[in-house]
């Protein structure tokens, strides 16, 4: 096989990323073109760009699918994309103004996301035969585990894009916004499939730098600026600490490749290098914990969630966090292999878990700002998931060579919960965007009785909150049940008990929101001045139905998560 063929085959494995990257470039070009849209020839330019993008995507798709040996015909999708795009750009010329400004880049991103998602689903099915996948470019591991997270990222990108298009507080700079958003998701997709310290660092930085910019995107709002600065400073420090940890892990693990590091560390007993490796692990895990906002690296979280534009908060709470978990699980699975290290790594995770769930729930208790409440609740959920990460090795028994292996059921519960968490949190934040816009306030005290005015969205929000609490028949209930099972099987009964106590606490504040919405009659509520677009409500209802669907029939998501976990 020639070098070029190998190259194209590699490209085929990272197809979703390439499609997203192309989308980002298109967004940028569209924005550039729209800046000078006053002149007539811009229409021509739009057409050229559209056609070029369409044909380019089509060519890419065909080449990749050929390289993968699968007949995937993407021409139809590209044609649809092109048609939509031409229509909107032409419409834009006729209906100048804010609405189209907002819509056009968003639609491009939606189209690109769908295309990439289509591609990712194809990859997933291609991997069903061999979940371990393959290593591409010698650096990345495209296995079903990473594709699962890629799918999560794409769903998040889709929904966040829809939210953004309906988010009225963002007034300009849509091109830049979507570029950053797509860039962040690209970073996630590289991050979740990387098996190499350099790629982890790069992916994480791509994700982080884009997120910093996104958090501060509402330039006129000082709260947004404050969120951005807190995020960038805290994140910069954390990633520097993480990198220092990487440098030690590299030196003592003797490689940049995670698998090799694991093998090497498992081979070395805890000797005199114990302290250096310990520092390396502490720095690495600490720096990564910041990404998922686990206590005690969570300090940025409530402030940034509150200050950032709500769609960005949604993204941070969902996709960014899932990506962080993807890496942490991979690294814990690698570092914990060694006989001496397993106990240390899992104990650290257990401590972080206990602290996170307790702190998150306690912090949420007295919040009135709903975004902030959800921020604390997300810290608590990180605690629940970390419970399963601590029990990742199950009741570990050493395999050949004295190394330990990940319990696939534990990994499955993590993946399932991340999926569940994504659905219900996307819904919850979306409903907050909707209701906050209608009420003109994110503060719960202004929401009294609004439930009767906005029955559909409020009702769906209650479903999401039930799911976040973990009450059947919702997806959250089943996910939490899996986590508890994992923790108990892994010997962390005390964590499971603590989590149960915490769940009782969390009931209180989740129900506070429901109480506020429905306990007072409609007459006493503030009037609803603005009503967001109906498409928003449709998206939310769809997410609500998914929440219930996976709650009643969990096996659909569970089998996917199980298949993906098998790749670890």
């Amino acid at each position: 096989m020639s070098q070029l063929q190998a190259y194209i085959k590699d490209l085929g494995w990272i197809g979703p990323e390439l499609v997203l990257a192309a989308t980002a470039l298109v967004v940028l070009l569209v924005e550039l073109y729209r800046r000078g849209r006053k002149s007539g020839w811009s229409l021509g330019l739009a057409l050229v760009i559209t056609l070029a993008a369409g044909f380019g995507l089509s060519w890419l798709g065909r080449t990749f699918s050929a390289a993968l040996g699968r007949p995937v015909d993407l021409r139809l999708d590209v044609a649809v994309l092109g048609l939509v795009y031409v229509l909107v750009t032409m419409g834009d010329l006729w209906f100048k103004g804010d609405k189209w400004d907002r819509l056009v880049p968003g639609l491009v991103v939606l189209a690109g996301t769908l295309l990439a998602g289509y591609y990712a689903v194809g990859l997933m099915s291609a991997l069903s035969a061999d979940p371990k996948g393959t290593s591409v470019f010698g650096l990345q591991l495209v296995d079903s585990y990473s594709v699962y997270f890629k799918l999560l990222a794409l769903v998040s990108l889709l929904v966040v894009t829809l939210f953004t298009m309906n988010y009225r507080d963002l007034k300009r700079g849509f091109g830049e916004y979507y570029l950053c958003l797509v860039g962040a998701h690209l970073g996630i997709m590289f991050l979740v499939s990387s098996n190499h310290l350099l790629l982890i660092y790069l992916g994480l930085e791509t994700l982080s730098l884009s997120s910093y910019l996104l958090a501060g995107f509402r330039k006129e709002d000082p709260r947004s600026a404050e969120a951005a600065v807190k995020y960038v400073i805290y994140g910069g420090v954390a990633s520097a600490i993480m990198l220092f940890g990487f440098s030690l892990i590299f030196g003592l693990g003797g490689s940049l490749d995670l698998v090799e590091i694991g093998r090497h560390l498992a081979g070395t007993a805890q000797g005199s290098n114990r302290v250096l490796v310990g520092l390396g692990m502490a720095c690495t895990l600490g720096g990564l914990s910041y990404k998922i906002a686990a206590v005690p690296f969570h300090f940025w979280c409530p402030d940034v969630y509150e200050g950032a534009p709500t769609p960005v908060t949604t993204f941070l709470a969902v996709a960014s966090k899932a990506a962080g978990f993807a890496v942490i699980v991979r690294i814990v699975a690698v570092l914990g292999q060694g006989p001496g290290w397993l106990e240390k790594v899992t104990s650290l995770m257990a401590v972080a878990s206990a602290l996170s769930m307790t702190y998150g729930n306690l912090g949420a208790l007295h919040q009135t700002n709903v975004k902030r409440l959800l921020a604390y609740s997300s810290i608590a959920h990180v605690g629940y998931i970390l419970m399963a990460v601590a029990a990742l090795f199950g009741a570990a028994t050493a395999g050949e060579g004295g190394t330990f292996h990940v319990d696939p059921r534990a990994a499955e519960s993590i993946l399932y919960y991340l999926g569940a968490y994504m659905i219900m949190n996307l819904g919850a934040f979306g409903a907050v965007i909707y209701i906050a816009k209608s009420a003109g306030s994110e503060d719960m005290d202004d929401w009294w009785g609004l439930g009767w005015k906005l029955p559909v969205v409020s009702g769906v929000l209650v479903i999401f909150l039930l799911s976040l609490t973990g009450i059947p028949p919702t997806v959250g209930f089943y996910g939490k049940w899996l986590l508890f099972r994992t923790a108990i099987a892994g010997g962390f009964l005390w964590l499971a008990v603590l989590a149960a106590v915490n769940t009782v606490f969390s009931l209180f504040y989740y129900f506070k929101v429901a109480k506020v919405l429905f306990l007072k009659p409609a007459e006493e509520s503030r009037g609803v001045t603005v009503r967001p677009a109906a498409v928003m409500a449709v998206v939310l209802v769809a997410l609500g139905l998914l929440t219930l669907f996976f709650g009643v029939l969990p096996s659909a998501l569970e089998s996917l998560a199980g298949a993906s976990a098998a790749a670890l």
Partner: protein
Amino acid sequence: MTAEFLAFLVVAAAAVSGALITLWSKSIVRSAFGLILAFLGVAGVYALLGCAFLAITQLVVYVGGVVVLYLFGVMLTPPDLEERRASRVSFWAALGLVSLVLFSISLFGTRLPSSQGKPMGDAAGIGEALLTRDAYLLPFEIASILLLVVLVGAVHLARREKKKAQENAEGEEA
């Protein structure tokens, strides 16, 4: 004590003293120059380890770029905003010193891989590695995307809105 060890001591002293100047100096501009000294010291360490290209990159990007960026930042914000709280700095410095001492006690008992002293990557080797499929082509491409995103996003944040009137017009349309 060989010449190499002596050279190491010199560059290490430069790096550490530069860092300490950054830490202690009252004036932020002087701190920035301390940072330059530290970067120079680190570049010297690279050179000592045989990484000429990296040493040059360090000089060009850090000394020529990053520190200048910080100096811009300093110039654009009032210089007298930070009142240096000596007690605070010394408190944390003492903590840092204690932990460093404690840690280095363990460090010097650590068994590390023995030094091999092979020649390090030269510019040609690095360039080849960066553009080879099975080596580091992919990170190279990711970095380019990252830089693009950063460029556009940073410009968006840093750009001053030119016309208030235009904003208002857009606001009314909304």
